[in-house]
């Protein structure tokens, strides 16, 4: 973890936690930053289409038509103009928060490089969309933005004639220039939409719509802002005068003052270094790339559950290659796999009850095998039958925080990596009084969807579901941020008390436990429960 992440991550965890308490996990705006970005984009698009109906392209007509909307038709076109501006600003806010949050949680390395890298042009296209929009009003701010932008672009030795000469004097500009600007202001956002589509290509089931309630509340807040503080223009542009004092939109134009402070070359170098650094971050140290999931064809029956559950579309179902009587087989695209193990949790062959042959499921992580997990759980087995097993997510509360008699803690890359049959195994064969699944905070799964699939499997809404014979009251799950150790301890403690109040479980015989402990010793463990 970098020093910056060490500062940002705890801050975001606390913010996430606080926002989840206020909004609920599903409505938490921090869990929906990308979806809110899409929502604000659509508000900008719809309000922009309405505003375009009234907009005239021309040196004086552009300003006059915007003034008409703002003053004469303030109740609709004026509100639409304000929504257009404020939703665009809100888009920048959620975009930056989304970027910083993904950085803080280290969710940009490995297979996630594609989403990160495609996010970089999105930032540039969002800014370009906003900046071209400010030109169209053709007020003093537009004059400043147009002049400063073209002077900056002219630093590049690629233009035959300086573009800034278009703004040299009042007679230098003609109406056709606005036609070009309108084209740009429509084309760039369309390119942005294409970039957004690309951004989501390697994400399974991306959330591009926020929950309706959150969307409605956000829209109402922006509408209220538009009514209370309508967007207005500066004085009309006049190329015979210099714009002096400007009310900048700092979300889009925040870097423009640098053009007055630094040379254009310095600003270019700074912008290029910043952009390239952000783009290169997935490949910068610290390097870590856990082994990706592996398919064992002997145990794969081509059921496709792993492909269904993979949060990054890393598994595809291909034509069978081993002659077995199944149509398809799972194939892992290593470059897309984030090593979450959710595929192993979904595999119907991942059952610890297997007696014949070794416990090798159709798919699993080589660094976190299920046979290893079963051996770990066997070693923790308690003949007294009063022990609660906590299966903890490696990205949540540290297992050390739960050390106490009566609790056995095993860590997995994601709680979604636990096949539900292991819960049955723990309760029926290991003498567990209960099983507690401690995942990431709700809606904030480090690997996406792990918490969602776990709940669905426990509730038997998704295959492989928890077997009906498993007493549901002995299984509980909860989502916790890494800093919420005390809250997790309280929840587990309450669960422990609850299960101790239940009728005693059938405790496995000493012979059964001994047999499993012997197997655990053979596997290299200590064998001490």
């Amino acid at each position, binding site marked *: 973890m970098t020093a910056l992440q060490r500062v940002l991550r705890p801050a975001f965890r606390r913010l996430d936690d606080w926002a989840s308490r206020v909004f609920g996990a599903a409505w938490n705006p921090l869990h929906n930053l990308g979806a809110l970005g899409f929502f604000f984009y659509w508000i900008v698009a719809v309000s922009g289409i309405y505003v375009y109906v009234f907009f005239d392209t021309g040196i004086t007509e552009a300003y006059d038509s915007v003034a008409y909307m703002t003053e004469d038709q303030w109740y609709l076109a004026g509100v639409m103009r304000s929504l257009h501006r404020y939703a665009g*600003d809100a888009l920048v806010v959620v975009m930056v928060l989304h970027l910083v949050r993904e950085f803080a949680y280290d969710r940009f390395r490995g297979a996630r490089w594609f989403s990160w890298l495609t996010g970089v042009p999105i930032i540039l296209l969002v800014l370009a969309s906003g900046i071209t929009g400010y030109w169209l009003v053709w007020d003093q701010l537009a004059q400043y933005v147009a002049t400063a932008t073209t002077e900056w672009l002219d630093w590049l030795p690629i233009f035959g004639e*300086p573009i*800034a000469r278009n703004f040299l004097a009042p007679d230098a500009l003609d109406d056709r220039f606005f036609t070009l600007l309108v084209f740009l202001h429509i084309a760039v956002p369309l390119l942005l939409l294409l970039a957004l589509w690309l951004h989501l290509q390697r994400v399974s089931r991306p959330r591009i719509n926020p929950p309706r309630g959150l969307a409605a509340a956000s829209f109402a*807040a922006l509408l209220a802002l538009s009514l209370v503080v309508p967007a207005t223009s500066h004085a009309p542009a006049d190329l*015979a005068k*210099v714009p002096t004092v*400007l009310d900048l*939109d700092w979300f889009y134009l925040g870097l423009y003052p640098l053009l007055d402070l630094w040379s254009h070359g310095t600003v270019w170098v700074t912008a290029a270094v910043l952009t390239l650094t952000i783009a290169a971050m997935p490949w910068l140290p610290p390097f870590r790339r856990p082994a990706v999931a592996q398919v064992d064809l002997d145990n794969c029956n081509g059921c496709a559950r792993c492909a269904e559950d993979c949060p990054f579309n890393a598994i595809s179902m291909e034509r069978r290659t081993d002659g077995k009587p199944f149509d398809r087989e799972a194939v892992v695209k290593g470059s897309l796999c984030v090593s979450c193990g959710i595929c192993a949790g979904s595999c119907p062959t991942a059952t610890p009850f297997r007696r014949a042959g070794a416990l090798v499921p159709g798919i699993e992580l080589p660094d976190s095998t299920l046979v290893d997990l079963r051996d770990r759980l066997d070693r923790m087995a308690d003949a007294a039958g009063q022990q609660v097993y906590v299966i903890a997510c490696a990205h949540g509360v540290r297992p050390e925080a739960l050390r106490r008699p009566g609790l056995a803690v095993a860590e997995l890359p994601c709680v979604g990596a636990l096949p539900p049959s292991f819960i049955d195994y723990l309760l029926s064969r290991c003498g567990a009084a209960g099983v507690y699944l401690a995942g990431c905070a709700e809606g904030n799964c480090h690997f996406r969807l792990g918490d969602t699939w776990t709940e669905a499997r426990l509730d038997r809404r998704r295959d492989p579901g928890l077997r009906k014979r498993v007493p549901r009251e002995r299984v509980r799950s909860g989502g916790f941020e890494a800093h919420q150790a005390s809250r997790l301890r309280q929840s587990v403690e309450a669960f422990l008390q609850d299960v101790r109040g239940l009728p005693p479980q059938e405790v496995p015989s000493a012979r059964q436990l001994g047999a499993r402990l012997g197997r655990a010793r053979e596997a290299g463990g200590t064998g001490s429960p």
Partner: protein
Amino acid sequence: MTRMLRYVGQAAVLAAFVAVVGYFSGNPSFRHFPEGEALLKVSFTHGGDRKVECRKRTREELAELAANMRTTLDCPRERVELRFEIDLDGVPLYQALLPPTGLAGDGPSRVYERFALPAGPHVLDLRLRDSRRSEGFDHVARKAVEFAAGQSVAVDFRGGEGFRIR
């Protein structure tokens, strides 16, 4: 947290969010240009003479060329760099050698410069050399300009018209 408290919290968060959006959408103000000054912009695009004068090809040289390439004049494309100077009230304000653009150095030279000047009357002396000569200038102009505070004055140059104030 009670339901009412949650609603209050949600409203507060959204209000804070739009307050930040609304405020930074137009605040704080930024002074781009100093008070009491005027802006002088000097810009033109102008091609200098050829660096080497055209010469007539000999009969032998023409014979060596392909039939479709036999033009009588041999004119190397490269142009001279321009020497451009501005004096403000008799004091040098800007002096530059403007190289021709293009990979072959055959494009026009270009300049775009901005100067913030105190408001008031000023005299501009403009000098441009665009020929192969090594001393002196081909275009010279003296312009008396009254600069008002906040005014933007442009100086342009065109081959046929010379320097002009816009």
